């Protein structure tokens, strides 16, 4: 009785949505960002609905499968795509498909049905195996000698390596992305972390496929719209979710200069430019400068196509991971640009 009441209440909650952006979507899908019935969340652990937006060929599909299996029950998946015949990774095989411009209604309905138990939560798509076999000696198969080695609980412990401060500390090889806050579509970072410092970094853009796009930017205002989408993503990264929603709302259509200027004023006052100053310097330009340039409504165009992935990787080395995320976000790497933006830049 009480449980049913709690479930009914949960069914009316704003739907926590985790968005995985594939190919042909551009940045933050604004249709989802400003609707009060939804709440975009930054971790699949916080979501009931996974919205996979766009195309997911090859490795991008594997990444979606991983994230899909990390959502807690009740969980459901929605594939929002302009190309239903495209690659369909395991996680999307049973997903409801939305092809319209506005998936919000479908998301809300899915969440309600899941909470009320009308439909079953998605089953896992990956095998229930530990990442590595438990190997070695010991009661729990932890193995190894003393403090080192072995694979306790299916993963090895980190081993030491020299760092830039002349200390020998643990190195953590990780593959991060592409579905992280501030990351452009398909970007993946292969990094070695020591503490929070990036010791080695390699950037890779996963195959995003080709075909019809989901984001339909206004050819006349595509550049400005793209800038606002990017700003929404940046604001979300900085913990300014409400301002991000405001930016997303403006990004729907060609924005009015006055409302854009008002938003820019709020962003300048938020201290975000100061927080980004000195971070991710390339060619004498830091993240702050890149932010300020996009805040100026009078000069939305004329941006450079961005540095090469190799140069960005060079800048990441030596930064702490929080700064690395800001750096990656600030470059607005052109991994998946709409034609309208490309034209506006040309």
């Amino acid at each position: 009785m009480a449980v049913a009441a709690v479930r009914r209440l949960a069914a009316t909650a704003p739907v926590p949505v985790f968005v995985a952006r594939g190919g042909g979507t551009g940045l933050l899908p604004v249709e989802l960002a400003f609707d009060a019935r939804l709440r975009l969340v930054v971790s699949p652990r916080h979501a009931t609905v996974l919205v996979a937006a766009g195309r997911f060929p090859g490795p991008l599909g594997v990444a979606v499968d991983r994230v899909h299996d990390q959502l807690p029950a009740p969980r459901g998946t929605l594939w929002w795509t302009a190309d239903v015949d495209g690659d369909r990774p395991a996680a999307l095989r049973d997903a409801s498909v939305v092809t319209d411009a506005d998936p919000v209604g479908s998301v809300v309905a899915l969440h309600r049905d899941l909470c009320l138990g009308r439909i079953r939560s998605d089953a896992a798509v990956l095998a229930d195996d530990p990442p590595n076999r438990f190997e070695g000696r010991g009661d729990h198969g932890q193995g190894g000698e003393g403090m080192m080695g072995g694979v306790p609980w299916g993963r090895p412990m980190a081993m030491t390596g020299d760092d830039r401060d002349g200390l020998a500390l643990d190195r953590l090889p990780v593959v991060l992305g592409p579905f992280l806050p501030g990351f452009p579509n398909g970007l993946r970072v292969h990094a070695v972390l020591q503490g929070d410092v990036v010791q080695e970094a390699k950037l890779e853009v996963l195959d995003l496929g080709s075909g019809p796009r989901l984001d339909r930017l206004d050819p006349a205002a595509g550049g400005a719209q793209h800038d606002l989408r990017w700003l929404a993503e940046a604001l979300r990264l900085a913990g300014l979710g409400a301002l991000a929603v405001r930016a997303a709302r403006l990004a729907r259509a060609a924005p009015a200069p006055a409302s854009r200027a008002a938003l820019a004023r709020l962003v300048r006052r938020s201290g975000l430019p100061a927080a980004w100053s000195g971070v991710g310097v390339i060619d004498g330009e830091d993240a702050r400068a890149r932010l300020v340039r996009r805040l100026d409504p009078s000069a939305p165009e004329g941006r450079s196509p961005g540095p090469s992935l190799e140069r960005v990787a060079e800048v990441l080395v030596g930064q702490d991971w929080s700064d690395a995320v800001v750096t990656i976000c600030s470059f607005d790497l052109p991994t998946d640009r709409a034609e309208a933006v490309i034209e506006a830049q040309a």
Partner: protein
Amino acid sequence: MLSVLASASAAFGSVLVAVFLARGWRAGKKGLWPFRAPFLGGGISETHAWSRFHARYYPMTLVFVAFEMEMMFMYPWAVVFVEEGMTAFADMGVFLGLLSLGILYAWREGAFRWQ
């Protein structure tokens, strides 16, 4: 004091029970392996996250300890300050002055920067 303890333990206990009821003692054993993998945005890690972490701000923590010790003297000092007057003011002034020099020295040595 008993009431403080009672309030704190009540909040402590109820939250502890709530979490244990939800997750159980063996939080690692519930759920499938892919569910339990660390969230890395669709990426993976070769190793566990626990490691000998390089906390590069450790010089700052030493400065912190120096100040934290000083706090113990300041509590009784604050109570008798008005009574003792100028003497107390001068005493603490010297003490804080020395510690401030310490901060300046630590700053010059780069204790608060770690990039």
